[in-house]
């Protein structure tokens, strides 16, 4: 019998806000334990949650990017939750009126194009972190992450393979990063994915027993988990190796196995009820239109525009539109220098090399586009050499600066002092008569040796063409 896999995803994405969802504590990752806490996120009696407006902005933005309908009145609810990483014994989330519903995301795999339906996007608070201490046999609680804002993107069970899941997640990540909703860094937990999976005989319209898998923090782990779980389900159905039950399972990537965690709760078990402390949020036309008008171009639209408007090749346009930071820098640079091809080259070769050296991703590029454009202008008008421009770019990675001012302060401007160049050439020739003789005898490499010595003496501040011409003239005279 042939089987097909049915997969639905719940993707949690941490929103790029400065503060938490219901209090003003910092939402930054990586602080000392319990440094970002207050009575509200510690669940102390009498605290009153107040919604962060930017969370609603980003929730709406995500909804619009994923072609959802935005609920103009959106409300928050309490979901029962009995673990100490959420101190209220409930999680504040959205159940009855989530911010966005009924969306659609297009993906492309080796089997072609497919549309994945989005059931809903809801805003909620994250839980804190528990550390289990073997020495004292206790659990230690860090509330820094408690109440950090999340959206949960719930898909319909429209996915049917690990390849489709990866394509879907990559598409989500690209769209959400483009709209600056989140940095979507799986390794830091700002994008997490729970996989709901079942299998059924091919062509059947009945869904099989569904399991939910948690604890996956990379695309490769998700692929391995789906492949393992699919095989486990098929084995159980075909060979009766075990009884499949609806449950939550934990994926152990080191062991390459999933393990039962707990019986899967149903919605009733969570006992959702409206949060009386948080007033309904009504999104009026001004607010809605403001978000709608601030949406970025979709990456594929931008790519087509870069190719038609700036004459970039598909490869270059593809790399640039892979990251919003690259696009912003590129567009800023082109606006300043008017040379799209050069701007693309600087970004794709020099900037990407520096990012790789710093073990950073393209999204972490902080170089100001206007400053890059000024740097390109300085090179193309012959004010500085390309070698020195690279030195300036390294400094621009540290902090934003005016390239012309930096070049002047650090003696990186090309010298027009032909007297000085002439003096340096004459000294080099006098010091190495053998090289002069070798060049005259037809050894081209000898010229390069002299050229190098002169350039070193001039500290790189000389137009290579000018130096070469003057050097050959002088050798011929000698």
């Amino acid at each position: 019998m042939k089987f097909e896999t049915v997969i639905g995803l719940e993707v949690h994405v941490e929103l790029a806000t400065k503060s938490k969802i219901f209090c003003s504590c910092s939402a930054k990752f990586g602080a000392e334990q319990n440094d970002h806490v207050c009575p509200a996120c510690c669940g102390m009696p009498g605290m009153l949650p107040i919604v962060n407006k930017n969370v609603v902005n980003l929730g709406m933005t995500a909804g619009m990017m994923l072609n959802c309908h935005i609920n103009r009145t959106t409300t928050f609810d309490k979901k029962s939750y009995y673990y100490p990483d959420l101190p209220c014994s409930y999680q504040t989330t959205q159940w009855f009126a989530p911010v966005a519903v009924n969306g659609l995301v297009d993906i492309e795999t080796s089997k072609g194009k497919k549309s994945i339906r989005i059931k809903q996007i809801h805003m909620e608070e994250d839980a804190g972190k528990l550390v289990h201490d073997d020495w004292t046999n206790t659990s230690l609680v860090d509330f820094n992450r408690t109440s950090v804002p999340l959206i949960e993107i719930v898909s319909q069970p429209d996915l049917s393979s690990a390849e489709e899941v990866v394509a879907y997640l990559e598409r989500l990540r690209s769209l959400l990063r483009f709209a600056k909703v989140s940095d979507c860094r799986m390794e830091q937990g700002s994008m997490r994915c729970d996989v709901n999976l079942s299998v059924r005989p091919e062509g059947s319209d009945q869904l099989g027993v569904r399991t939910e898998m948690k604890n996956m923090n990379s695309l490769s782990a998700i692929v391995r988990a789906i492949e393992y779980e699919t095989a486990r389900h098929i084995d159980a159905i075909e060979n009766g190796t075990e009884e499949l039950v609806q449950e939550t399972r934990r994926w152990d990537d080191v062991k390459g196995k999933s393990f039962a965690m707990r019986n899967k709760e149903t919605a009733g078990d969570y006992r959702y009820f409206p949060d009386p402390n948080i007033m309904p949020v009504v999104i009026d036309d001004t607010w809605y239109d403001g978000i709608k008008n601030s949406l970025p171009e979709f990456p594929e639209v931008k790519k087509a525009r870069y190719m038609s408007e700036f004459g970039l090749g598909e490869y270059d346009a593809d790399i640039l539109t892979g990251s919003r930071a690259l696009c912003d820098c590129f567009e800023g640079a082109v606006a300043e220098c008017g040379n799209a091809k050069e701007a693309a080259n600087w970004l794709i070769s020099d900037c990407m090399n520096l990012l790789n050296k710093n073990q950073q991703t393209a999204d972490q590029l902080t170089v100001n586009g206007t400053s890059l454009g000024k740097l390109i202008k300085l090179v193309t008008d012959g004010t500085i050499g390309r070698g020195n421009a690279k030195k300036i770019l390294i400094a621009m990675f540290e902090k934003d600066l005016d390239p012309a001012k930096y070049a002047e302060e650090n003696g990186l401007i090309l010298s027009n002092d032909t007297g000085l160049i002439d003096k340096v050439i004459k000294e080099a020739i006098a010091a190495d008569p053998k090289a002069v003789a070798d060049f005259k005898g037809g050894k081209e490499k000898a010229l390069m040796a002299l050229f190098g010595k002169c350039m070193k003496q001039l500290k790189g501040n000389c137009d290579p063409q000018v130096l070469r011409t003057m050097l050959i003239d002088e050798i011929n005279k000698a």
Partner: protein
Amino acid sequence: MDQTTLQSLEKLNQLRLTDAEKEAVLAFFARQDKEMAVLDAIDTERVERMVHVMPILTVVREDVEKKLFTRDELQKGAPETMDGYWQVPRLVE
């Protein structure tokens, strides 16, 4: 409310009840059921659900980060702390 539902609620709320407590809870819910039956008899078809007493909508704040409390202030009332963490009975699923 029957024994099975009570058992399920006990598990969900992470409680362990004695037989005497279970009996008391079942008796309590039996009384509640009667009172709910009275309420159920009322026609509420056209009555809008009331969650919020005050007619206030859209209470939001700007996304501004503020540090209003220190960890030490917040942990003053904690029964147990360790290295800046709140310390609780061990919890492993």
